[in-house]
């Protein structure tokens, strides 16, 4: 009964908040990602041109997905490494791709309606997941007013967006970054410690609660893994300038969009468990 109400409330709040986030993302965030991807493609073409000049015997048709089999890709990198004119920036780019390459034949949604659909699907799923955490926290703490919901939403924004973004700012495709595994570990550390620290600050007793500040600060003091080279490995200076402008815009837009999303999500969670999916309280369960 209790579990069911939490899940129903979270699905209801998550559906609405997920659609709000998906819509904001579609109109405000995705255009920036698509803009950056244009340069990502341009960058690959530039790289392939340099390979072609160094190794004209190899056919380089990047539009053919079968061309990028793992063997072919390692062949690319070998060819690039042997190219005396390869710049240091290109080397860094190769290292990044060798460390983490996606299978080019893996399924991915088609650009357009399909991609938009999966963006909405993933934002909604993510919102339901976050709503489950918020409502669980609200019912565990025993404070489940709508105001408490908004406060939980703000705490979620701090723990899941602001704290990790301080060390690892939101990135657009094509940006140089440290190895994915290290960044994911630090992301988890930042989220866990910030959530724990905020919990201690909000629910700790006496002077002990101020220890929460230290817990919140720990991941920031340890620091996120940073790439050896910041910015973009794109050879064209004007493209790099354009990409850097896109990054600034991306960081600002995602900060606002995620803030709006978390406040809406917290509010909707509070409304859902105070109206349609009211949790059974102590008195009614013990009287039953």
């Amino acid at each position, binding site marked *: 009964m209790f579990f069911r109400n939490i899940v129903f409330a979270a699905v209801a709040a998550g559906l609405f908040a997920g659609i709000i986030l998906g819509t904001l993302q579609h109109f405000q965030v995705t255009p920036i990602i698509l803009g950056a991807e244009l340069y990502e493609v341009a960058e690959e073409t530039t790289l392939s041109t340099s390979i072609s000049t160094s190794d004209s015997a190899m056919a380089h048709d990047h539009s053919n997905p079968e061309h990028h089999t793992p063997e072919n890709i390692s062949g690319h990198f070998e060819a690039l490494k042997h190219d005396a004119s390869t710049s240091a920036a290109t080397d860094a780019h190769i290292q990044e791709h060798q460390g983490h390459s996606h299978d080019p034949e893996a399924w991915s949604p088609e650009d357009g309606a399909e991609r938009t659909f999966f*963006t909405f699907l993933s934002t909604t799923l993510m919102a339901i997941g976050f709503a489950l955490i918020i409502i669980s926290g609200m019912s565990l703490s025993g404070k489940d007013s709508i105001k408490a919901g908004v406060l939980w939403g703000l705490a979620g924004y701090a723990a899941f967006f602001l704290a990790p973004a301080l060390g690892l700012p939101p990135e657009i495709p094509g940006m140089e970054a440290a190895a994915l595994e290290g960044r994911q570990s630090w992301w988890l550390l930042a989220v866990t410690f910030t959530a724990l620290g905020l919990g201690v600050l909000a629910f700790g007793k006496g002077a002990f609660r101020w220890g929460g500040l230290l817990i919140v600060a720990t991941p920031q003091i340890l620091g996120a893994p940073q790439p050896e080279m910041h910015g973009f490995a794109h050879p064209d200076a004007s493209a790099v300038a354009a990409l850097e402008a896109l990054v600034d815009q991306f960081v600002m837009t995602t900060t606002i969009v*995620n803030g709006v999303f978390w406040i809406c999500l917290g509010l909707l969670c509070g409304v859902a468990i105070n109206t349609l999916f009211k949790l059974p309280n102590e008195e009614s369960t013990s009287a039953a």
Partner: protein
Amino acid sequence: MNTHVSGPQTPANQAAAKAASLTASKRSQIFAAAFLGLTIVFAVGLLPMDAAHNAAHDTRHSAAFPCH
């Protein structure tokens, strides 16, 4: 009245025991819901499988999950 409450099989005692077990059950239900939520968030945000990455690509970027 006091003897009734401390007695092993009084209705008051049974109700108290029931309330206590409900609270424990309630807590485990809350943790189950929280665990389900964390699983969903990690699946959308961090699952390394290529298809999951590609489907949630734009969402991962915009929610500042580590990507690529």
